[in-house]
């Protein structure tokens, strides 16, 4: 009887204890996981908010730069600046433009007929 009791107490000591420990760890782990998850959701939402704000600021800045660029490229503005700075710029008159003929895309040989080409290369004339 005493031996049995001893044996029983030995089995009770580890099995349920481990189970209890496992259960406790599970509950504690879940709790910590839940808190961590909530914390992450909060942190990420803050990050999303900051990123959205930053994106908005950059988009707004971009818009302002685009308008500034448009101002600088405006023909009215350019005309005004040329006058202000007394640059004396004026469009070229047609007589001041020297137009060169476009070079032919094909080499001079291409002007020859296919038959002539074949003859020069010593091959048979092209036939259908």
């Amino acid at each position: 009887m005493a031996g049995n009791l001893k044996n029983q107490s030995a089995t009770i000591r580890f099995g349920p204890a481990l189970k209890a420990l496992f259960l406790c760890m599970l509950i504690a782990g879940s709790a910590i996981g839940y808190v961590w998850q909530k914390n992450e959701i909060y942190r990420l939402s803050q990050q999303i908010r900051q990123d959205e704000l930053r994106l908005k600021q950059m988009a707004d800045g971009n818009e302002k730069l685009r308008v500034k660029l448009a101002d600088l490229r405006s023909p009215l503005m350019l005309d005004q600046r040329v006058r202000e700075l007394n640059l004396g710029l004026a469009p070229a008159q047609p007589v001041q433009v020297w137009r060169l003929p476009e070079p032919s895309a094909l080499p001079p040989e291409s002007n020859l007929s296919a038959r002539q080409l074949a003859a020069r290369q010593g091959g048979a004339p092209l036939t259908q």
Partner: protein
Amino acid sequence: MTKRLQLRRVLALAVFVCAAFAGLGYRLVDLQVLRHDELAKLAQDNTQREFRQAPRRGDILDARGNLLATSVPVKTVCADPSLIGNQQAIVAHALAPLLQMNEAQLYQKLFPRVSKDEKGETVTNNLHYVRLQKNVTDETWQKVQQAMSQTSFGVDEKKLPESGRVFFRNLRQYAIFADPDQMRVYPNGSLAGQVLGFSGVDEFKLDDRPVSQISGRDGIELALNSALGGVAGWRVTETDRQQHELVALRDEDVQPHDGLNVVLTIDAAVQNILESSLADAMQKHTPASITGIVMRPSTGEILAMVTLPNYDPNKPDTISPDTRNRVITDVVEPGSTFKIVVVSGALNEGVVRLNDQFDCEQGHFAYAGRVLHDHEPFGMLTTEGIITKSSNIGAAKIGIKLGQDKLYDYASDFGFGQRTGISLPGEVGGILHPVKDWTKVSVAQIPMGQGVAVTRLQMLMAMAALANDGWLMRPMLVSCLEDRNGNVVQKYEPQRVRQVVSDSADKEMIEALKTVVSPDGTAAGAAMKNYTVAGKTGTAQKVENGVYVHDKYVASFIGFFPADNPQLCISIVMDEPKEGYYGGQVCGPVFRDVAERCASYLNIPPDSPAPLVANAGNPH
């Protein structure tokens, strides 16, 4: 005894606990089931908010991608009067100069007000929301925030009780706030103002808050409002007490669909050339108005369109009925420019040939009870000579020879009496009466440009048809629609309307039109140094109270160049010019100036053989 007492106590406790649980259970059922809908809505209203996400209005660009109209982000500064307490005077004093507002008016706005809605019911929206100023830049808004945080309210806030400290904290942080908004900006000022049009702000209420939305009022802004406007998105989310969004609790988030960019056929540089030349002519001849159009005849693309006086869309106070786009909204009798219709029609029908002779009656021709006049007496003139000298009597005789039905058909085929279909609001179709309404003299009057009313654009399109082998094109102002990344969503191609005259008749007509700018013609001042010009002058008397007046004219010159390979067609029209009134005299030189500058800018090869290489010098 003790046991019984204990049992009784336990029983009483059990009954009490059961009753309590029953009560709680009932309350639970009441809250969760019976009043679920009502309470759920209340809870939702307390925390959940729906925000409208405004789309960005699309840009308007010129043919080379230069920005003509855009939207920039700004703030609408608002106040929550319920948080201001009795500090209105100090707040108004601090903010009025920053917001460029009258201090007294601002002071009045900061008081909580109770108003009545359309149904006459009292509403208290103004307790929490009042708009102070629109279109406030980011920089100004930062100054406003700084002013609110640094302004002294005349009390030592640290010594105040908790409630006092909370009041001042809320006043500094939340009493003045800003809603995001956008403002329409036209970086080039008045350049192409009438083509771009202008925009206004539509307001409507969403969740009892006014929401503003930019919408077109005139020009391209109005014609393509739906494409430019985009589609709003929304966000359903929860907020904290200070109405800050709790991103983690965000529910629906539908992004707005931004408006499309509209790419015009207008070239800002050509527009600037035309505007500056017309401004010079405006100073010289002081007409009531002056208009100009530059177009590619082969495609119908409009590179520039100007009416002076014009307006700056950035400054609404410069907009008035006088600054309307007269190119499409006003009709005038075209005068001699209309002779191109009758002569090209007659050439096309084979009724006349270029060398046929007509007796121009020495300037006086009686027909159908009326006497027609020329601006100077001519004897015999060829068909070509009638165009060169712009003889009314010659044109009338060609009209009579062509016949009224054919004359009407050609006028109609050239597009008169109907809208051109340009994508601008306010275009009118002009007046071309059906033949049944003509008088006997109409067939002689219409060829000289009387008895019909046309828009400047219609007249240009008719001339452009002659420059395009007789093909009438639909005028093009919009090249394509793009998304924000520059991807083309819709491309517009040039559209042919119909071939009005044959190739051969067209070429003969061009030969005649070339002579107009010769020393013998009516527009020698329109001739260009290195290009052959073809064109026609017009000088129309204005009609007042049903009679022609002798001191008010509409002068015009419409021409194209190089005559045998037309690249540009240009129309210049002055309404009541001073210092001369003949079309060739006042509009011809303006045409030449615009044409030469455009030719240089667009690098159009000269077709006159004269001084090409000889005077060129070393290009290096």
